[in-house]
């Protein structure tokens, strides 16, 4: 039951993009086509889960016992950056089709603040455990995927719209994101 609540909270109520504002760069950057946004979502799901697993273990078994908690930011970003590189190399060898699908997005993910953000947020969970932290990461990446894919679908339609000059590009995208966020606000109080 607890896990279902985490899932609903992460996907709808506290959606990582639309209500916590993490991962806005890929949200605005790679959302002009549904197919690319699906690829990006897959890459985020993959990296976020493994990164949270790694950083949680690092925090629990190395940083806290040795009293180095203040090095959290530096170590986490280093682990995430090297993890992404490693994943890229491994995917290339182990599973070329998966690499074909996710490859281009992997380097972009290092500076996706959603990955670092979720890794840090997972530490603050109530009676946190490794399983819960990993599930938390998966739930948040599903929320990211939902927001990104819905937004990309709307943007594909928007291309046909006839907009005033100043409104094209950034302003209309932000406005659409705002309306989408307003729609997600409707889920408040669900859990």
């Amino acid at each position, binding site marked *: 039951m607890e896990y279902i609540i985490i899932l609903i909270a992460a996907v709808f109520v506290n959606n990582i993009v639309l*209500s916590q504002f993490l991962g806005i760069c890929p949200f605005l950057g790679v959302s002009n086509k549904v197919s690319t946004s699906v690829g990006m979502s897959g890459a985020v799901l993959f990296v976020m889960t493994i990164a949270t697993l790694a950083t949680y273990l690092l925090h629990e078994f190395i940083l806290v016992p040795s009293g180095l908690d203040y090095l959290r930011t530096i170590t986490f970003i280093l682990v995430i950056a090297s993890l992404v590189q490693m994943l890229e190399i491994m995917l290339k060898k182990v599973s070329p089709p998966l690499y074909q699908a996710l490859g281009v997005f992997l380097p972009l993910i290092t500076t996706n603040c959603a990955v670092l953000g979720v890794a840090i947020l997972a530490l603050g969970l109530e009676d946190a455990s490794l399983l819960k932290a990993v599930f938390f990461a998966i739930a948040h990446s599903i929320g990211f995927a939902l927001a990104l894919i819905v937004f990309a679908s709307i943007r594909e339609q928007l291309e046909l719209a006839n907009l005033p000059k100043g409104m094209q590009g950034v302003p209309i995208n932000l406005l659409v994101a705002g309306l989408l966020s*307003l729609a997600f606000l409707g889920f408040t109080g669900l859990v």
Partner: protein
Amino acid sequence: MAEKINQKQNFLKGIIKDNPVFVMLLGMCPTLGVTSSAFNGLGMGIATLFVLLMSNIVVSLIKSQIPSKVRIPAFIIIIASFVTIVEMVLEAFIPFLYEQLGIFIPLIVVNCLILGRAEAFASKNTLLSSIIDGIGMGIGFTIALTALGAVREILGNGSIFDLRFVSEDANTFILFILPPGAFIALAYLSLLFNKLTLKSN
């Protein structure tokens, strides 16, 4: 003299022509995430300005020592060190702001604005130019965040910098304090910015 004009343009470009938020769309997460009041926007802007300036200085000083293959991890370490400093200073001296900004303080590390300036500017230019670039970009970012925070606070809370100008029980446009308000307010601010810059061109 030519050098001087160059530096002036270098400074001003971060504020108008290449404004990090309105033109380059860098650092959007903190821009949207912390600007529920003008004070938070200003605080975040200054914290980012500090990290950006220091990382620009250090990157520019040691640019010839960093092998180009590992330059991105090296930049990230430099930035992360200064972010840790900011995190500790804020926690010790301005705990109120530390709590308000929350997770967005450690996330300054992945603010693409800072890494972007280290990669695109500080690693190729002299120390002086990098300092001026850092200050200009930082001020441009701070102005954008403070403006967005002020708009949201005025509409959503009827106050500015915590000074209320409507009565306690007045109905304000609470939507602007909530997440959707961030997107909508920034959409109209960037529309306004586009309009002003298009006109001046």
